[in-house]
């Protein structure tokens, strides 16, 4: 089994009386594509926000490699190698595509900005749009730009929050191929609602429900799990 790169132990976060994440143990193995699924309100986005440091946990521990990063602020975790792409596209609309990606490249202390930007844009096939203002890009290109910014950070762990949301079918195919090509250099954790994408891409899946881990396993195991079927996939008992 591959080494664990990111690990959460007993992670918990409540908003008022709502336990959004409730004692989650989770391990991400180096080099895998891991999908996080669950019904709306299951706590998926809260969970990855805890991992990336956007919000602070009430309890629990997060380790990157051997290092305890629970107390690190978000920007410091990014520098340690955890990149996060937002569920709602979050770019700099009034800056050029070049500047958007350059901000990610220079965050890594790269000497040659042009080369770094060209490489990241090349990965997502957007080299020709380098001087365009980001806000004028199509929605699909904005999603890809966000992904390019994540890649330019050269992360050890890339967290994608619903990356295919709002993309056309053709764009999704391209995206799947792109993410599959990343496994040699980074580890991917993605929240995804599109089951075709999940079953196609993920090597392992974690199912959250009411802030707790309902099941964990390979796509085949998850598909066969009756509890998951009842809670989420809408077949089995629920359909009967």
């Amino acid at each position: 089994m591959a080494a664990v790169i990111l690990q959460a132990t007993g992670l918990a976060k409540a908003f008022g009386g709502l336990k959004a994440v409730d004692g989650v143990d989770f391990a991400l193995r180096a080099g895998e594509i891991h999908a996080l699924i669950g019904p709306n309100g299951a706590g998926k986005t809260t969970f990855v926000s805890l991992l990336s440091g956007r919000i602070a946990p009430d309890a629990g521990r997060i380790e990157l490699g051997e290092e305890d990063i629970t107390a690190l602020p978000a920007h410091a975790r990014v520098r340690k190698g955890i990149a996060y792409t937002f569920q709602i596209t979050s770019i700099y609309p009034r800056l050029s595509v070049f500047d958007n990606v350059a901000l990610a490249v220079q965050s890594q202390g790269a000497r040659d900005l042009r080369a770094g930007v060209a490489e990241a844009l090349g990965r997502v096939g957007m080299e020709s749009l380098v001087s365009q203002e980001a806000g004028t890009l199509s929605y699909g290109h904005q999603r890809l730009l966000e992904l390019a910014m994540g890649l330019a950070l050269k992360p050890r762990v890339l967290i994608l929050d619903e990356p295919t949301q709002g993309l056309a079918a053709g764009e999704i195919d391209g995206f799947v191929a792109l993410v599959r090509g990343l496994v040699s250099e980074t580890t991917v954790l993605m929240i995804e609602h599109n089951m075709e994408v999940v079953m196609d891409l993920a090597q392992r899946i974690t199912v959250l429900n009411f802030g707790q881990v309902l099941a964990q396993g390979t796509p085949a195991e998850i598909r066969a799990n009756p509890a998951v079927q009842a809670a989420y996939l809408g077949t089995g008992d629920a359909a009967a």
Partner: protein
Amino acid sequence: MKAWLFHLVALAGLAVLAAVLPAYHANNLARVLVLAVYATGYNLAFGYTGMLSLGHALFFGAGMFGAALPVTLWGWGGVPVLALGMLAGGVVAGAVGLLALRTKGVSFMIVTLMFAQAGYLTLIWFNAVTGGDQGLVLPGAARRVLGIDLTQDAPRLWLALGIYAVALLLAVALVRSRFGRIMLAMRENEERSRMLGYNPYAVKLKVLVVSGLYAGLAGAAYGLFFGYAGAGFATVQYSILPMLYSLLGGAGTALGPLIGAAAMFWLIDFVSSLTNAYLMLVGVALIVLVLFAPRGILGFVRERWLPWLP
């Protein structure tokens, strides 16, 4: 390259004006240039980094009294007091920023305003030293910088131009640097910037200190150039002026604050010769600007013709 050329040509144009303007307007130009240094620093925080501060009068006042007090208390003068004033502006901005930058948006505006008011009242409270409302008149002996006699119109104007030129070119270099890109990133989308590995608090604090150094230098120069330091320069009006200059000339453009300061100064100068109600006409001019060129004069030019302008 184009950007540097543009600003060098603008400075050359100012030098020509400095050489040919009649005494009255040459004196005004000196005032405008010093205020433009102040507004250029303000614009780094406001126009480029998105920090709307109402506390800059405190940094301007800190610079003015940071220069004036050593003159009246210990008989200092010249470059050391200019440097002290500049330093005072930066230190006070850093101290205010440490606390105020825990807030943002409207809260930041109010917290900085409160600090500035407290600073103004402190100047009044210690009127035995600061002169309070009366202020301090600076003796001619102290008003010599590098052998330049600041009681004379022409030398004063040339020194003002020299200081503005350095301030402008440093600002252009800053906003065109990698750090300048991070400043824009903070203005445009702070949360995204945090998730690219930048600490918003640290970035904004650095910019605020630079902005405070500009304000401090401008305050010190204003006191030394025109021979007077008064608590009136630390009132909220002097926080709003650089904002208006920036908005009028083009927030987030390097040369905008000078254009704004000049336009406002000469507009008031001209209109007040026609009517006592000159502020009303100034108000009308500002409304027209907001309606037809909301990004300011140079912002409008950049949008239409010069997209490469920093």
